[in-house]
């Protein structure tokens, strides 16, 4: 009676696999400790992997100078949004509990190589770095405080785009942040935008692309529309390096690709050129 035989079970992933890190770009396997030791950069292909906001801040801000601001600004569920998997409020609260952050961008005053600045760093772990009302509000306030205190603005972006769960008000944050940045520039202050992997959608189409200089890290994904959406629209296969930092640099939209180890010194050097 062959049809009573139990179905062959799918082989379970051996527990040892959990110790491996896999580079999302070249797919090389390595010990997780190696990945971490190399500052989340692939030793094989140099893809610069994701850092949390706090990890990034520790690498960019001078020791002991970072003072967080606007922590009280958080999300709002004004749409009372529900989808197939549950409600928005529960999802954010779970994210807040998991990450310890209140929103997808962490803002604070600091010094970078001795130069005072207003530093914002996005955290992809917070709902895919999505742009919500709280994110936009923190950025707008940062611009206003930067103007008041004559601080250059530096923002590290990492985002899948606008946060759908806050609907049209997420879209409006694109306008709000862009307007605030315009004012900062009119006030004679510089804005350095660092687009990290990935920076896409409503974030690339607003503050991320408005830097006086737009810089990035090797092999970062930067784009507007998703690759699959584009392929389905134009019915063509796209080059492998499409929407990479290197591709954008070739097409004239990136001022410089900066190695992670050099980022802090680079920012300080540019601020120095401009008299800040």
């Amino acid at each position: 009676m062959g049809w009573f035989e139990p179905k062959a079970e799918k082989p379970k992933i051996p527990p040892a696999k959990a110790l491996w890190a896999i580079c999302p770009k070249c797919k090389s396997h390595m010990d997780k400790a190696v990945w971490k030791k190399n500052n989340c950069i692939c030793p094989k292909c140099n893809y610069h992997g994701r850092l949390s906001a706090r990890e990034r801040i520790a690498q960019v801000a001078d020791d002991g100078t970072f003072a967080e601001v606007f922590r009280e600004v958080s999300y709002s569920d004004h749409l009372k949004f529900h989808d197939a998997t549950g409600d928005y409020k529960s999802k954010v609260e779970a994210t807040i509990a998991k990450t310890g952050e209140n929103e997808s961008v962490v803002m604070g005053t600091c010094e970078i190589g001795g130069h005072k600045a207003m530093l914002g760093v996005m955290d992809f772990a917070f709902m895919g770095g999505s742009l919500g009302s709280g994110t936009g509000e923190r950025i707008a306030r940062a611009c206003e405080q930067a103007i008041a205190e004559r601080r250059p603005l530096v923002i590290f972006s990492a985002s899948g785009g606008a946060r759908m769960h806050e609907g049209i008000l997420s879209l409006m944050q694109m306008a709000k942040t862009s307007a605030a940045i315009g004012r900062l520039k009119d006030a004679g202050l510089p804005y350095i935008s660092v687009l990290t992997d990935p920076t896409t959608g409503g974030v690339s189409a607003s503050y991320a692309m408005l830097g006086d200089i737009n810089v990035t890290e090797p092999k970062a994904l930067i784009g507007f529309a998703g690759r699959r959406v584009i392929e389905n629209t134009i019915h063509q296969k796209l080059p492998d390096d499409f929407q990479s930092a290197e591709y954008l640099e070739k097409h004239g939209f990136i001022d410089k690709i900066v190695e992670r180890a050099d980022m802090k010194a680079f920012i300080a050097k540019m601020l120095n050129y401009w008299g800040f």
Partner: protein
Amino acid sequence: MATKKAEKTAKKTAMDCVKIARDAKRPHVWDFINGICDDFEELHGDRLVNDDAGMVAGFGTVRGGGAEYKVLVLGHHKGASVEENMASNFGMVNPDGYRKAMRLAKLAERFHNPVVTFVDTPGAYPGREAEERGQAEAIAKSLEFFAGLKTPVVVVVTGEGGSGGALAIAVGDKVLMMENAVYSVISPEGCAGILWRDGAKAPEAAEALKITAPDLLKLGAIDEIVKEPAGGAHKNGKTAVAAVKKSVLAALRELVKLSPEELVERRYAKIRAYGNFYK
């Protein structure tokens, strides 16, 4: 049975609005230009690489209530025929179109021409050249640019307000929205695909996203709803366009009274207030 049918026709869902907003017979940008402007001169080119047929731009005269306004008109061009649809990518604009809009709006600012925009797009074009020519940068630049423009900007969302591609010409002093138009951060189909993992759940997504004119008025994202003929603007295009003209004239009448500095301050305060951010 009769009462149930009456109830069904009375309650309009978000998806009903989407269908009306996308109706092929709905007034499009040239209907508004021809119905609102007494004369019009279309201009072309971004002066860099291309002329985008998906964005219409030009100067025109709008007269009404004893007043005359010489304005710059900008608008997404969906097209009224298959040929036009193909040429304009159904109103999905490339970076070139947004740069054309900015170039001419800068000119309008210099000569104190108010800007009137007609928003009707499924979204910015998701293409290869679009990415290579900086689609994200063009939209971002447009937002920064229009936020600080020293001439009145009146926006009319006439059909589909498709996300960033719409917003690029929708940052203004007065945002009007036609009764059955929709305006969203993502299309219902796109949202359904991601959050419901089923594109067929678009009607549920449309309800959840709150994309109709009354929703947006309540959320503070638009300033005024322009009524449409019963059943939708496609039932009587002339009446629909006339209603838009009336609201545009009223907006211009108020805005031209402000100095450029007052205008920009007022606009910033408006944009600055978007969003709720406390738990």
